[in-house]
């Protein structure tokens, strides 16, 4: 006491006067962030399987998404994914729950924006994603040759046992018989069906149905032409 404490305090500040400064020179020098740092929430649309775990685990209703049920494959198809970032608490519960790691935090911490609407992040289904699905059918050469082999195998199978193979895309036995007859008469149709069955079963079913309908119509026409009269009813 009696001033010693004052002098000691002065000594401490004096010592610090000559020590190195610890100021971070942001934004000239960006801060060193830990690998786990949680900055901005990111979403990878293509990885998402629309399971909804993230939405259910979020405490603040930040996340929401829209799906559409695909008629052919019965798969849920993700249409859009919305992150209303202004409510986010950065708790990491969504990212921890995600089985595909498609939602995660990146290291971008400069989150300010000019408009309130900009805070809300809406991910729409990218157009390339649908295209790529189509592309993937005639994709790369290797895949092509692989597919070609499959198509050849399918064609053989169709020739050997058309009823069993076609039952995968057609439901009614009557239709199967019609189609198999058609294929035996027309090799082009057989090839197309085989190709489609390898690449896209849904499409194959559609095309097959189309062929069957066409064949049915033709048959009806010939019948009416033979019997006459009835067609007018």
């Amino acid at each position, binding site marked *: 006491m009696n001033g010693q404490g*004052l002098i000691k*305090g*002065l000594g*401490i*500040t*004096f010592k*610090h*006067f*000559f*020590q*190195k*400064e*610890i*100021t971070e*020179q942001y934004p000239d020098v960006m801060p060193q962030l830990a690998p786990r740092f949680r900055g901005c929430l990111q979403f990878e649309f293509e990885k998402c399987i629309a399971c909804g775990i993230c939405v259910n685990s979020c405490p603040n209703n930040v996340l929401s998404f829209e799906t559409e049920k695909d008629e052919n494959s019965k798969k849920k198809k993700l249409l859009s994914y919305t992150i209303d970032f202004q409510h986010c608490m950065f708790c990491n519960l969504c990212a921890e729950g995600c089985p595909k790691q498609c939602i995660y935090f990146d290291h971008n911490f400069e989150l300010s924006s000019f408009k309130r609407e900009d805070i809300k992040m809406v991910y729409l289904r990218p157009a390339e994603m649908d295209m790529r699905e189509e592309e993937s059918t005639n994709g790369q050469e290797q895949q092509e040759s692989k597919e070609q082999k499959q198509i050849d195998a399918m064609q053989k199978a169709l020739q050997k046992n058309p009823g069993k193979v076609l039952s995968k895309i057609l439901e009614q036995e009557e239709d199967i018989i019609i189609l198999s007859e058609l294929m035996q008469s027309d090799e082009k149709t057989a090839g197309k069906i085989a190709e489609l069955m390898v690449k896209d079963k849904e499409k194959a079913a559609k095309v097959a149905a189309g062929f069957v309908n066409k064949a049915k119509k033709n048959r009806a026409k010939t019948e009416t032409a033979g019997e006459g009269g009835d067609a007018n009813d």
Partner: protein
Amino acid sequence: MEALFVNLAAVLSGWLTSLGLSPIWADTVLLFVKWIIVITIITLNIIILIWLERKVSAFFQERLGPNRLGPFGIFQTIADAIKLLTKEDIVPSAADKLIFKTAPMFFIVVAVMLYTVIPMGQGMEVINLNIGLLFFISIGSLSTIALLMAGWGSNNKWSLMGAVRSVAQMVSYEIPLAFSLLGVVMISGSLNLQDIVAAQGKLWFIILQPIAFITYFIAATAELNRGPFDMPEAEQELTGGAYTEYTGMRWALFFLAEYTNLVAVSALMATVFLGGWQGPWLPSWLWIIIKTYGVILVFFWVKWTFPRIRMDHLMSFSWKVLVPVSLGNILLTGAGIYFCRWMGWC
């Protein structure tokens, strides 16, 4: 170099007389020129000082301080001054408008008046007053009125409390302030600041009057309202004290005045205790600048180390410690002078 400014003044004076002005009018014009130079120096000095305080406080706290505008952030203060000038000037509707607006002007005028008597070098002062030291103290006491006006005019409890506190503080600390300088006056035998400087040719008064130096330093800190005695502002308690309601340039004027006071008091300390403009090799006006800035750095150092003292402790410290100590110092000095004469040393 030594007599640079003195010669310049002589040349100007001669030119004025050659124009046909009578000596008294030439002196008057010269006085105005001196004042303009003093005010310009003060303003420029403040820009450096505010930057320096920010930088120094940052270094004490392991920070960098201003470093964006210009080299080492030296232009930061100018940017801030522009900002303050362009800010909206808010006068509270409940304020006493006349007093509210006059207070900052009064404060700065009083602060600038302090420079009248400070010797800035050999033969360099606005007026060589034979009671210069007393003049300095008395003008310094006027700033209490300005603070009181600011506190009353704002019509705000915080402001009034800040003003009342600082006035009580300044009135109390004026007494040890004046008493601590009396020892120096007794030794030098004059109230003229140039005489006091001349008396320190052999030995600085800080060595002859160490107690006076310390009491003066403490009392001056209180008079300047600097930490740990920053009662009128006291951000943490009074949200800005007497300056709470001030904005823009009016607020800046208060701070301009505070820094002006700081330089003046530091220059007086350098003059009275540290040998004034005397020093080897360098010209006298450079010596006083170096010494003044040395004292200012100590003020900064103290402010950025100590917590704020409590109001009642502050008052009792003044009346129960500083006043008796400074009175004792006068007694001691008197005894010392008689002892000296008796021994035949002086």
